Structures are given as C-alpha cells and as structure tokens.
C-alpha cells in the first residue's frame, strides 16, 4: 500500500509554517499531551531542549519526571527505555547523533527487537529511538553518518525516516503509538531547510508504507531522508527535458513496502535509487535486488543506484563529494533512460 502526497499543496486552515525540527517538537508535545505514559529521555533534552532544539520547552511544559536528562551513556539510554517500556511507559529516547548510537546497539538488537517475540507476546517494547542522521551541515567527525541499513537488517525493529515537516509530524505520532520499537531517524540537513504549513491536528501518517511524492511514467526515483530534496529537484529538471519521473519516499525503510515500489517500477520500467549511506550493504541494494529478482522481465534498464561511497563520511570540507547531488541523480536518470 502506498500513499500519495502532494508536496506543494496549499494552506491547511489554522496551520502555520513549520520546519521539520519544529514538527518533531510539535508531535512530541502532542503525544505527551494525549498520553501520560509518553516520556522523553536523552542527553541534553531538558532545559537545553536538545542540541537541535527538538525537545525545546517540553521539560518546562511536562516536568522533569517526563522529560529526563540522562547521564552520558547511550547503552544506558536504550536499556532504561526498554525497562520503562516493559512496565507500560512509552519512552521516546533521543540519541544525540546517529554516529553515537552504537553503544545502544546491543540493547536494540538483543532486547528491543526481540522482547515481544521472546516472551511470546507477554512483554511489549513500545519504544521510539529518535536520532538526527545524515550529512551536509558541516559537522565534526561522527556527526554526519547514515547507517540506517544496520538497523534495517534487524528483524523486529522498524526504521522510519521522515523527509518533510508534515511527514515528520504524522510519522512520529504513529511511531509513538506503535506498540513495537521504532528507530526514527531525522535528516538533520532538513531540520531547518524548509517549512511547510502544518496544523496540530494529531493526524497520523501510516508506517510501513511508501509515499509517492510525485507521479510519473518514464521512470521511478526511489529515495528517503534528506536526499528526497535532491531527488525532487532532479525530477523537476528531468521534467523540463521531457522525462516524467515518479518520486517515491520510502519513509519506512524497514520493513520495506516493496509492493508499492514494484508497482511503480513495473509501470515505468526504469528505476534509480538514491541514498547517502555507503553503497555496499545499503538499503538500495535490497530494493535493487528485489526489483531485479521479481520484475526482471519488466525492467527496461538495469536499476541504478546513486549513493555514498564505501568510505567513512569524509570530514566536512569534502562531504559534498560524498553526498549525492542533483547533477548525479540527473546523470543517472539519463543513463537509465538511454539504456538500449
């Protein structure tokens, strides 16, 4: 099942223009208002409101018992959140940067992902781990990684990535509602890059489904996270050259809504996948493999992936060389269109 969204439609009544990080903040405030079991924990999320201000004002509004600054320890943050979740709270934990999520890996893989399965449904783990991710803001080492694929390989976890203020709002509310653990990755390059009219109506957006941001019939561009911006820009450029590109925001990168991606590619016959994570072992490989395995006869050209490289994210002076740009996507699309 896929959802169609128009990125550029007009004004929602009573709404105001919000950035992605403001949308996150609004969703957190709403979830905490709706449900007293929702609590927040993380480093610097209290008085400081998080280093990106995603939790700004929430400790003042909901008190120190529900918005908790933890000691500096990510394994502890995850473990504590899991313990809280087993007792019926709905913790939303912030990992300050995705590059610092690794200490929490053991807790997420060996417990969060399995608690329900292990106990045959007796214990639940309704947990959201929020983390800003991705490059492009000239940050120091370890502050720009995109390692979503590591979590997508872990059965039992959902990995959700919003790419607009509205999807951030609607998907985060759904992630918090969800009775299972969700890794919610926020593209920090988009935190303040664009505004969208957004009303605080509590409307959820569905998980486990892609969003079709733009319809097209010549080819399908599949992406997620911050790269959606470059992908949309590339689609626009292609349109001016008479190529009609469908743009899919995968949004929930695990589990993958392949049915919708496949339906689009079976329609267009061509596909370019764009992500900023390293190429090998990236989620693009999964999508590409499943398309080719299941729709070989319908593919009019090989799938092309535009990705980061199999190197660490370089320090910021060179990060743009690593990150897919509009020109890279357009070039790949051209190559894809001109196949045979």
């Amino acid at each position, binding site marked *: *099942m896929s959802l169609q969204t128009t990125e550029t439609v007009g004004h929602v009544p009573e709404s105001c223009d919000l950035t992605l990080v403001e949308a996150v903040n609004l969703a957190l405030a709403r979830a905490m208002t709706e449900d007293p079991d929702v*609590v927040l924990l993380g480093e610097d999320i209290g008085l400081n409101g998080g280093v990106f201000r995603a939790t700004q004002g929430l400790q003042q509004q909901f008190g120190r*018992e*529900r918005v*908790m600054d*933890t*000691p500096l*320890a990510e*394994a*502890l943050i*995850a*473990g*504590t*959140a*899991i*313990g*809280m*979740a*087993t*007792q*019926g*709270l709905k*913790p939303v934990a912030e990992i300050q940067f995705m590059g610092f999520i690794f200490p929490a890996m*053991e*807790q997420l893989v*060996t*417990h969060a992902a399995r608690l*329900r*399965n*292990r*106990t*045959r*449904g*007796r*214990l*639940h783990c309704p947990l959201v781990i929020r983390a800003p991710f991705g490059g492009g803001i000239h940050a120091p080492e370890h502050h720009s990684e995109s390692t979503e694929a590591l979590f997508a390989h872990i*059965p*039992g976890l*959902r990995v959700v990535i919003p790419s607009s203020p509205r999807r951030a709002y609607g998907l985060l509310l759904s992630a918090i509602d*969800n*009775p*299972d653990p969700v890794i919610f990755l926020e593209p920090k390059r988009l935190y303040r890059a664009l505004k969208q009219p957004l009303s605080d109506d509590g409307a959820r957006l569905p*998980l*486990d*489904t892609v969003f079709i941001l733009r319809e097209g019939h010549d080819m399908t561009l599949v992406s997620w996270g911050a790269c959606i911006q470059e992908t949309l820009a590339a689609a626009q450029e292609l349109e001016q050259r008479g190529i009609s590109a469908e743009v899919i925001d995968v949004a*929930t990168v695990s*589990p*993958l*809504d*392949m*049915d919708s991606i496949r339906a689009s590619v079976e329609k267009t016959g061509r596909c370019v996948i764009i992500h900023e994570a390293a190429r090998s072992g990236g989620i693009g490989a999964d999508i590409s493999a499943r398309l080719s395995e299941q729709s070989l006869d319908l593919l009019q050209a090989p799938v092309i992936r535009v990705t980061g490289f199999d190197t660490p994210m370089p320090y910021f002076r060179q990060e743009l060389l690593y990150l897919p740009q509009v020109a890279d996507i357009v070039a790949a699309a051209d190559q894809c269109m001109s196949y045979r």
Partner: protein
Amino acid sequence: MAQIPVFDPGAMTQYLGCDGVPVRDVPLWAHDVEPLLRAYEWMMLTRMFDQKAVALQRTGQLGTFPSSVGQEAIGVACGLALEAQDVFVPYYRDHATQLIRGAAMQDLLLYWGGDERGSYAGPAQDLPVCVPIATQCGHAVGAAAALKIRHQPQAVLCTLGDGATSKGDFSEALNLAGTWHLPVVFVINNNQWAISVPRAAQCGAPTLAQKGWGAGIHSVQADGNDIIAMLEVVNEALDRARHRKGPTLIEAISYRLGDHTTADDASRYRAADDVQAAWEREPLLRLRRFLTSQGAWSEAMDARWQEHCQALISKAVEQYLATPPQAAEAMFDHLYAEWPAALDEQLDLFAARMAVREV
C-alpha cells in the same frame, strides 16, 4: 594523598557458620523457624531441579543448562523477599527466584530446551531470562524509573554475576540508580567464577560491593551461602527501595559448585580441592544443620521433602517432554504486535520452503 578505603571485612553480614552454628545473634525474625523452613524447602527443590536439568541435558533431552548448585540461598532469598507486585529482573542463573515467583518448572525446562514458550512466566511485570551479560541492569533501572515516575510503591530487584560487574552496562545502571535515587536493588551472585575467569582476574578491588561507592550507592556484602544473612540484607534493601530511601548494591559471596553450564568442564581450570573445600560452605548443609540443632528438621523430614520434590520434578519433566513443538511458522508470531503487510513476502517464502521440505 587519599588512599583507597578498605571495605570493612567485619561489615559482611553473616549469621550462620559453616557448621550451622550462629556466629552472632540471629535477627529477631529468624527466631521463628517457619520462614527458614520455607527457605530450606525451596533451596532443596531448586537443587534437585538443577540436578534433574543437568541429567536431562546429559541424555540429550535439554539444551545447555546453567545449574545454580551452591548458590541456592541467593536465589531463594531474593524470591522470598520480593513481593508479588515487585519487579524481578533476572539473569540466567535464577531458577530459584523464578520458581518462587510462580514460574512453572516445565516452562523453565522448555526455555532451556530451546522453545520460546518457556520464557519465564512469573508475574506479568517480571523480565525473562537475560543472556547478554549485564544488559538486564539497564532494564532494571528503567523499570525502577517507571515506578518512580508513576509514584508506585514497589521495588525492582536485579541479579547479576561477578563477571557481569566488569561490563559497562552494570556501571552505567548503577550510576543512574544513584543519580536518580531509584527504587532498585542489585544483587551480585559472586560465585567466584565467570566461566573460567576467577574473581581476582575480573577486578582489582578487594570487594565488588565497593563498586557502588563510585555511584554513591549504599553497598553491602553478605555471606551468600547463609540464608539468614541473605534474607536479612535483601529484605532490608527492598525495604529501603520501597520507602524511597535509595538503591542498594548487595554482593553475595558464594561459590559455583558446578560447571558454568553443561557445556563447560570446570576441571580444566580449577582445582578439585578448592571445589571440595567450597562444598563445606554450601548453603543447604548449613541451614539443615541449624534447623536440626533447633529441633525443627530431621533426616526423616528431609527424606519426605526430597520425595515430594522428586514427584513435582518428575511431573514437570513429563509435561515438558510431552509438550508438542510450536507450529512451524511460530517464529513469525509476536515479532510485531500487528503483522506488517510489508513482510508478507516472508510468509510466502516460508510457506514455499515448507512445501519443498514436505516433498
């Protein structure tokens, strides 16, 4: 310069000598033998259950199993001191506590027999067996924080091994417990070994209890083979937690009389003499001697109780062995609260595989 403070050796709580004779006045509550009889009975049941489980493994009827032989006083004290509404966060050597909290023996066997349905089914809020060392400590402080946030009066009790004290998860949790003043009790089952690694190779400090000092946590040592001492310190610590007086770290000194698990052969790395000597300090013998000296227990009673245990265990084993396997597709059950349609392909792949195999 400041010296490392010495943990006062006299501060180790102990009441019964190895010979069952009190080394000092037993606490008032222990003048009543009833609770001690109950403790003895559970300890005996635990020991016999452990023996049976090892035997089942030896005959190929159970998977790898970690016996708690020699450490029954720790588990039984935790089980008896906990109230039903408290939260128990075990590691993997806690059959005694789990049994007291209502887990069915056949379920424990199912778990160690490689079946998810055996996951500990004590009180709904308790956590299941935890295999990744020390990770349960994070859950314990999370559960304690949940109680605190909701102003609930219960306590959380978390167990771990001496080896587990080296893993960062333990320190991190201890630190949070101290900082947030959480209603949690950590009980270290210091059985002197982490598989083959002796206690001295695990930590350079003379006691593990003093690991609590750096977290600002009240820390005590107790003779883990003395059920009176264990009941005393665990009850007191839980009481502190329930009355919001802060967390406690208990180091219970015991000895792992068996192999680490049935997959281990301890004779490779420790002297038979040491083990022999440790049998002199084991908790059942000690309590039996004490109870006998009080005229509260006899060989005949012991035989009767063992017979009773044997019957219980036999029945559980029967039930365990008669449990039919889960449905093949059970591995997909409870993976998510609601099955994501996006994963339907998995079910198709699984069905196709099963079809091939049935051919």
